[in-house]
C-alpha cells in the first residue's frame, strides 16, 4: 500500500516535469519548426527538404562532423592526464587548479578566439615580440588552429567530469590488481579506463554536441578560413537579410538528428559499461606516489596546458585592454589604464551590465540545479525505462541545436503568448531561456554522479525503515551533491558570459556583459570591450574561489 502511494507520487512528479518540459522546450521548438514546414501558410515539406540537401550544405555538414570529432579527440588528450593528476595523485590537494582550469571556460569563446587572432595574426603580438615567428600565421589560420582553439576552450568540461568520476574509484581496486602483479599501464588499461567508459561517453558527447552548436569561435576564426559549419550557416539564414527562419529550422533538424543518434549511442555505452562504484562498502583513498621524474613531467604538462589555454589568450586580451593606440601595438609609452576607468566612469552601463549578468546567472544556475536534480532523481526510478529515457531526451534537446534556433523558438512562442503570460521583453524571459538552454548540462553532470551510486545504498536505508524523502535527503542527495555543485558552477559561468541568446532576446535597454562587450567591439572601443572581459573573468574567478572555500568550510564543519 505504502509503495503504491510512493509510486503514484513519483508519477505525479513525472507529470509535473512533463508539463514543464512541454511548455519550456517542446512548444518553442514547435513554434520554430512550424516556420520550416509552413511557408506562406501552406504545408511545404519539399521546400524544407530542399534546403537540407543543397550541395553546399552537405559540405558544411561534413565540416561540422569533422570538427566535432577532432575537438573531442584533442580535448580528451588534454583533459585525461590532468584529470588523473588532480584526482589520483598528490596534485589533488592543490584545489586552486580546479578554478584555474575553469578560466578557459569562463572566457567567452569569441573573446578567446579574438585574443588568439590578435596574438597570431600577421604583425600580431607574437610577431611584434618575436619577429622570427614571421609566417606562423599561415599555420594558425587553418583547421588545425580552429581545432586547437576550440579544444582549449572545451577541455574543462571533460576535465571536471573525468576528475569527479576518478575520485570515486576506490583505491582497493587498483591495489588488488597491484597485488596480482599488474603494472601501471596494465592497471590503467584493465581497471581504470573500463570503469570510466560511461563517464567518458557522457563527456565526449557533451563536447561533441557543444562543438557542433558553438557559434563564437567558428564565427570569428572559422570565417577567416572559409570553414562553414552548422551554426554559421544557420545564423546566416536567421540574421542575414532576407531572413529565413524556416531554412534555419530545417537545417537544425539535421543537427538534432545527428545529436540524438550520438546521444543514444552514448546511452547504450553508458548502460552497458556502468559500474556502481559508490556502495555501502567503505572505500579508502590512497594517492598514487609519483617518482621524481614523473613529478617534473607532470608539472611541465600542467604549465604547458595553462600556458596555451590561459596565458596566450589573456596576454592578448589584457594587453589589448591596456593599449592606448591600437595601431602602435606593443610600444613603450603606449599603455594606459584609461579603458578601465572609462568602463566605470563614462556611464553606468558597464556596471549595470555586470549586475544584470550576475542576477541572470545566479537565477538560471539555481533553477537549473533544482529542476535538473529532480528530473534525474525521478527518471532513474521510472518504469518502463523508455518513459524515463524519453523525458531525459526531451530535456537534453536544447543542447542538440545551436542556441539561436531554440532562442528564436522561445521568442516566437512567448511573444505570441504575451497576452496570457507577459514574460516576453522582461528579464524573466532571459532567465527562462538560460534555464532551457543549460538544463542539459545540469542533467548530464548529475546523471554522471548518480550513475556511480549503487542501488544497494538506498535499499539498505529502506530496510531500516527510511521514508523516500528521508533517503533522498540523507543518502542520495549527499552523494550527488558534488555533481550538482559542479553543474551550478558550470551553468553560472556559461550564463554569465552567454552572447547569442542575450543579443537577440534581451529586452530593450537591458545590457548584459557579453552584449556590452560586443557593442563596444562594434561601435566603441575594442580596448574597453577587452577591459570588460578581463574584469568579468577576474570577477568570476574570485567569486568561485570564495564559493569553493565556503563549501570546504561547511564540509569540515559537518
Amino acid at each position, binding site marked *: 500500500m505504502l509503495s503504491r502511494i510512493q509510486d503514484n507520487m513519483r508519477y505525479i512528479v513525472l507529470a509535473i516535469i512533463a508539463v514543464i518540459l512541454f*511548455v519550456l522546450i517542446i512548444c518553442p521548438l514547435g513554434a520554430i519548426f512550424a516556420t520550416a514546414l509552413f511557408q506562406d501558410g501552406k504545408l511545404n515539406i519539399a521546400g524544407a527538404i530542399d534546403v537540407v540537401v543543397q550541395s553546399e550544405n552537405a559540405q558544411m555538414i561534413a565540416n561540422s562532423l569533422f570538427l566535432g570529432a577532432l575537438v573531442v579527440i584533442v580535448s580528451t588528450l588534454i583533459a585525461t592526464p590532468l584529470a588523473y593528476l588532480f584526482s589520483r595523485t598528490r596534485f589533488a590537494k592543490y584545489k586552486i587548479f580546479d578554478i584555474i582550469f575553469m578560466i578557459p571556460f569562463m572566457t567567452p569563446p569569441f573573446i578567446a578566439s579574438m585574443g588568439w587572432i590578435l596574438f597570431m595574426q600577421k604583425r600580431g603580438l607574437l610577431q611584434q615580440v618575436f619577429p622570427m615567428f614571421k609566417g606562423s600565421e599561415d599555420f594558425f589560420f587553418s583547421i588545425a588552429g580552429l581545432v586547437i582553439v576550440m579544444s582549449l576552450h572545451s577541455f574543462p568540461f571533460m576535465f571536471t567530469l573525468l576528475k569527479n568520476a576518478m575520485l570515486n574509484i576506490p583505491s582497493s581496486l587498483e591495489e588488488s590488481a597491484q597485488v596480482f602483479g599488474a603494472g601501471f599501464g596494465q592497471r590503467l588499461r584493465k581497471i581504470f579506463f573500463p570503469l570510466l567508459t560511461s563517464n567518458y561517453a557522457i563527456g565526449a558527447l557533451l563536447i561533441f554536441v557543444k562543438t557542433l552548436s558553438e557559434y563564437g569561435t567558428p564565427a570569428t576564426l572559422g570565417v577567416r578560413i*572559409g570553414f562553414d559549419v552548422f551554426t554559421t550557416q544557420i545564423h546566416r539564414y536567421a540574421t*542575414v*537579410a532576407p531572413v529565413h527562419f524556416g531554412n534555419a529550422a530545417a537545417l537544425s533538424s539535421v543537427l538534432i538528428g545527428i545529436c540524438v543518434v550520438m546521444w543514444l549511442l552514448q546511452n547504450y555505452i553508458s548502460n552497458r559499461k556502468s559500474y556502481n562504484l559508490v556502495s555501502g562498502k567503505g572505500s579508502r583513498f590512497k594517492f598514487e606516489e609519483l617518482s621524481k621524474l614523473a613529478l617534473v613531467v607532470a608539472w611541465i604538462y600542467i604549465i604547458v596546458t595553462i600556458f596555451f589555454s590561459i596565458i596566450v589568450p589573456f596576454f592578448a586580451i589584457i594587453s589589448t585592454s591596456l593599449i592606448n593606440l591600437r*595601431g602602435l601595438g606593443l610600444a613603450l609609452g603606449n599603455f594606459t589604464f584609461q579603458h578601465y576607468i572609462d568602463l566605470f566612469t563614462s556611464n553606468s552601463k558597464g556596471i549595470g551590465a555586470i549586475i544584470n549578468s550576475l542576477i541572470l546567472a545566479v537565477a538560471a544556475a539555481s533553477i537549473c540545479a533544482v529542476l535538473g536534480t529532480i528530473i534525474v532523481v525521478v527518471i532513474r526510478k521510472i518504469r518502463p525505462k523508455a518513459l524515463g529515457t524519453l523525458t531525459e531526451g526531451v530535456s537534453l534537446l536544447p543542447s542538440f541545436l545551436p542556441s539561436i534556433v531554440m532562442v528564436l523558438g522561445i521568442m516566437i512562442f512567448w511573444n505570441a503568448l504575451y497576452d*496570457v503570460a*507577459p514574460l516576453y521583453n522582461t528579464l524573466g524571459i532571459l532567465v527562462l531561456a538560460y534555464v532551457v538552454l543549460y538544463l542539459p548540462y545540469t542533467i548530464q553532470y548529475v546523471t554522471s554522479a548518480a550513475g556511480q551510486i549503487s542501488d544497494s545504498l538506498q535499499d539498505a536505508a529502506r530496510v531500516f525503515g527510511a521514508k523516500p524523502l528521508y533517503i533522498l535527503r540523507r543518502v542520495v542527495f549527499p552523494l550527488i551533491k558534488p555533481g550538482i555543485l559542479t553543474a551550478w558552477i558550470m551553468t553560472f559561468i556559461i550564463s554569465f558570459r552567454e552572447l547569442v541568446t542575450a543579443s537577440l532576446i534581451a529586452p530593450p535597454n537591458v545590457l548584459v556583459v557579453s552584449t556590452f562587450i560586443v557593442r563596444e567591439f562594434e561601435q566603441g572601443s575594442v580596448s574597453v570591450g577587452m577591459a570588460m572581459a578581463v574584469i568579468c573573468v577576474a570577477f568570476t574567478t574570485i567569486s568561485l574561489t570564495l564559493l569553493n572555500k565556503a563549501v570546504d568550510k561547511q564540509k569540515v564543519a559537518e
Partner: protein
Amino acid sequence: MKKLIVLISMVLALCFALAACGNNASSSNQAPSSDSNAAQSSSDGVADKKGSGTVTVYMPSPAGLVDKQVAEFEKQTGIKVEVFQGTTGEILARLEAEKANPVADVVVLASWSDGLTLKNQDKLASYTPKRAGEMVKDWIDPENTLFGYSASAVGVIYNTTIFPEMNADWSELADAQYKDQLAIPDPEKSGACKDFVANYVAANGWDDFEAMAANGMIVPGANKAALEAVTTGEVGVLVAGVDYNAFKSIDKGEPLQIYYPKGGTVVNPRPAMIMKEAPNPENAQAFIDFLLSDESQKMVVDAYLLPGIEGIEQTNRIPLKDIPQIEPNWEESMKTAAEDAQKINKMCSK
C-alpha cells in the same frame, strides 16, 4: 496502462492549472508593467490616441550617438524610449520573431536597401516629417516611409605605417604592391559594404573584385573587425570600409587615413522607419521629427556621420559634396545584393 491514463489525465489537469496561473500572473503583473500593457492595448486600437508615454526603437550603431539622442529626446518630450541596440541582422530577426505581437515603433537600419526590403514587405507606415523639404535629395523615398536622417559612405582606409600615401582607384588595388595587404568587411554582415558591392558590380562588372580577391584579399568580419585588421596592421588596406569609424579612429590618433577613390562610391543613407503595426505611432512620429531636428543632426555630425538635413555644418570629416559617387540603383541592387555578398565571401575564402 492504468498508470499511463493516470499520467495523461494529470498532465491535462496540470495544463489547465498552469494556464489559470498564467492568467492570474498576468493580471497581478498589470500594475508594474503598465507601460507595455498600455502599448499592447493601443495596438489593438482600443486605448487612448495619445500613445502610452513610451516609444520602442530598434537601432544599430553607433552606440554613443544613440544614447545621446535618446537622452535628448526624453528630455524634450517626456516620452520614455525603449532602445534595443543590435546589428541589422539581430534587428531583422527580432522583428520576424515578434510578428504575432509587434513591439517596435521605430526601426533604424544601417543600409538603405535593407530598409527598402521592409518597405516592399509592406511593413512600414507613411509619414511626412516636418522637415521633409530640407532633407538631402533622395534621402527620403517618394512614399515617405524611409527617412535617411544620416548617412555613411564606404572608402579605402589604409594604415599609414605600411602605406604612407595612397590614392589608387578601385581597379588599381589589384596592383602587385597591395598583394596580401587587402581586406574587405564581410558584406553579409555590413549593409554599407553590401550595397556598395551590388552597385559597383552593376556598373563595372566583377573584374575588379575578382582581381582584388586574386591579390589575396581577406574577409576579417563585420565593419569593425575589418577596421581592426587595418588598425593593428594585419593588412595595410581596407577596401569598402565604412567611413565614420575610420574618421573617429583617425581623430583619436590611430595611424590610419581614408580616401574615396575616383571611380566613385555609394553614399548610403541610414533609414529610420515607422512600423505599420507600431503600438505607439504618434510617439514614433515625434521621434522621427526629433531625429531630423537641429539638436539631433548636430549629434549625427559629432559621430562623424553625414547629416540628413541640408546646410548643417561639418568640419570633422570629408563632407558630402567632396565624395565622388556612383549613381546607385537601389531597386536593382536590392535584388542582387544578397547573392553578390555571398559571392565576395566565396571568392575571398582560401
